[in-house]
């Protein structure tokens, strides 16, 4: 079972992000379970949503306390909320919506125990503003997630986005997700080349 925890703020589409993730996994024939954590639902308040993906029926109903991957929609949460709680060093994936680096975010040292190819940032809000016209980073992050984990195809992510949004909004979000996918893929290619050069 692969478990993903999404952190963001009310109004950023965190819950919708988890739901689209589960739809993308479903479209690839997997079992998936997405659910929100209902804290305070005010705009701007910290929000957590969860998604489990497996090859068999998922019966577990507890929150995800030991995620395999984190999607952080808002980097201002990094020093406010225990976003990294339960993430296994070494194996864990971290995807952060930011145009800054892990060092610039002040967590370079914290993530030094993780596999570098599993740590990615993507400027999802900027991509959303460019392609959708609104600062909603959730769909773009799913493109980045597909690229860094290889767990989902970009085509499934695009289909999940079209399942959730109508017409032009869907196409804008698919474009943002595709751009995020390309950016992360490119970064990973460069990182792999650098690693070889080292």
């Amino acid at each position, binding site marked *: 079972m692969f478990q993903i*925890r999404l952190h963001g703020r009310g109004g950023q589409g965190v819950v919708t992000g*988890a*739901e689209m993730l*589960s*739809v993308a996994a*479903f*479209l690839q024939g997997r*079992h*998936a*379970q*997405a*659910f*929100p*954590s*209902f*804290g*305070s639902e005010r705009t701007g*308040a*910290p929000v*957590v949503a969860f998604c489990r993906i497996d090859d068999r029926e*998922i*019966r*577990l*109903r*507890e*929150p*995800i*306390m030991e995620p395999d991957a984190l999607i952080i929609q808002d980097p201002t949460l990094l020093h*406010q*909320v*225990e976003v990294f*709680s*339960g993430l296994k060093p070494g194996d864990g994936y971290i995807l952060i919506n930011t145009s800054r680096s892990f060092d610039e975010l002040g967590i370079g040292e914290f993530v030094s125990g993780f596999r570098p190819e599993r740590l990615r940032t993507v400027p999802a809000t900027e991509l959303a503003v460019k392609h959708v016209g609104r600062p909603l980073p959730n769909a773009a992050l799913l493109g980045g997630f597909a690229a860094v984990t290889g767990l989902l195809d970009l085509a499934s992510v695009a289909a999940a986005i079209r399942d959730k949004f109508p017409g032009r909004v869907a196409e804008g979000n698919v474009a943002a997700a595709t751009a995020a996918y390309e950016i992360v893929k490119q970064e990973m290619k460069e990182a792999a080349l650098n690693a070889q050069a080292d």
Partner: protein
Amino acid sequence: MLKQIEGSLGVAEAVALCRPEVICAYPISPQTHIVENLGEMVKTGALAPCEFINVESEFSAMSVAIGASAAGARAYTATASQGLLYMVEAIFNAAGLGLPIVMTVANRAIGAPINIWNDHSDSMSQRDCGWIQLFAETNQEALDLHIQAFRLGEELSLPVMVCMDGFILTHAYERLDLPDQAQVDAYLPRYEPRQVLDPKEPVSIGAMVGPEAFTEVRYLAHAKQMQALELIPRHAQEFRAIFGRDSGGLVREYRTSDATTIVVALGSVLGTIKDTVDEMRREGHRIGALGIVSFRPFPLAEVRRVLHPAQRVVVLEKSLAVGIGGILSANVRMALSGVQLHGYTVIAGLGGRPITRKSLHKLFREAERDELQPLTFLDLDWNIVNRVLEREKRERRSGPIAETILRDVGVVAARVA
């Protein structure tokens, strides 16, 4: 057809396939998405003929359902928590009149303190109101139980509550197998009311009954629920024949045949319990689980049949009978009258507190060693409790409990679990 959708949408789709003629509802979390989806189906004409009636309160929602059902319509509504309490007088009337209304209860705690999260306090408060109460373990079962509920309720002329865990199920996206209209039509016949308000053949419904026959009317309500004990397994079998899957029935056993310890529970927590049982089985523990689908009528004989060979029974319930302990466990004990075994009541998951595998592992191991207290509150934070008790001992004006506790624990909104 397989779809990856929210539980609330799945239930709305299932209810729509049952061709309800009147839907009335008042919004309350976590039930709202269900009736919102149905409202949209009525508005677009996808569900027709059907009248969607907006009301100003839950009391009116149930009153309108009573009127619609008495006029011969297939009637549906949904509620939760305080909403269920607000309709209580009408709930008893619906059962007393024998009107086969189907209602979803998206289980949620009851205030005060106000709490929007899941537990079973709302349904449990109505356990003796005369409605049949079925508890869903998964969203697939929630969907399927609604189809069975219309069939069962109408056959007996009794109202049926389908209880599903608020948020945990209602707001979860998972894979659902949605039946087609032909399957539902084959399973659920047209509603033939036993009593109907018809201007062409005028009757009155709701006469006053005095001491001369009130006991007999009440006995008949009980006798009908006893008939449901026969019908529920039969309906589950017929459901399987048409839809190709197991849903409903009175109880569901999981790895109980050689189990020395059996955990009894209602609703979605059974999934987490089954995963814990599997992990413990791999380590050689002889443990199993018994899910109760039909809480009213309560299947005493089935529960006894499954539990009596065990050495101990752990009843894990999301509700509390203040002043005595368990509600489900009191019913389970009744099923075990005269049987010698260790019985434990565990109150868990109140007001949305997560029930984790980690806590269950510890709990079940303590039970196996018979070290558990007869009444246990899972993951109770004694620090919080003792601080309040000490404060109350120290000062007369110790203040409102909820507010002082929140000051003690600080803001928890940012916590993961």
